[in-house]
């Protein structure tokens, strides 16, 4: 049920995310030391174009990648087919992209914050 197009999208988003995941894990290892606070996170990300681009592209890629991945699982393991499968795939994409975009916005350009 994966044809060439979906397969290429999956692999391309994976390639895009490889450096982003490595970067994200590196940031996590750095930031987790001494505990996390909102101030600490926002001091890093607020108003930053670089972080907006970093996490923004991460959200776009993971929304596509996760939607296709869950599409395959729901088909192979849960027998979802046809229209229901299509709706489910798009719903996953919309959920991940919607929540992800909101999160990126919240930590970068959502006003003065605190």
């Amino acid at each position, binding site marked *: 049920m994966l044809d060439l197009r979906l397969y290429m999208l999956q692999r391309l988003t994976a390639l895009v995310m490889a450096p982003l995941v490595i970067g994200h894990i590196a940031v996590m290892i750095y930031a987790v030391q001494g505990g996390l606070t909102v101030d600490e996170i926002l001091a890093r990300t607020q108003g930053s174009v670089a972080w907006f681009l970093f996490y923004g592209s991460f959200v776009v890629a993971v929304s596509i990648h996760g939607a296709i991945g869950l599409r395959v699982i729901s088909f192979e393991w849960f027998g979802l087919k046809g229209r229901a499968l299509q709706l489910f795939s798009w719903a996953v994409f919309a959920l991940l992209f919607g929540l992800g975009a909101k*999160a990126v916005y919240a930590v970068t350009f959502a006003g003065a914050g605190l």
Partner: protein
Amino acid sequence: MIRPHRAHPLWFAFLLHRLSGLGLALFLPLHFYMLSLAISAPARLDGFLRFTDLTIVKLAEYGLVFLLAAHLFGGLRLMALEFLPWSPHQKTMAALAVAFAFLVSTLFFLKAI
């Protein structure tokens, strides 16, 4: 309980890749929601972040970072399998992917506690 025809290392590598992806996909909406609280309810987010200082939560984060690293390194293994010339060391690559995932996530955990 694993069916006999599945009892070989590369099938387990597949299962780890699938389950880690599934786990991450289920975790992400929560992750995104918590982060969006940075603007709508920062005090609540701060409270939640203090809660994550608990060791049990740090252990859960250890698991999540392992899933992420395993999915990343496993994914790189798959793309190497598909796009680079075939390597006869498939089981070694699968083992290395898990090993690196353990290293990275353990580094995270040791820094976190």
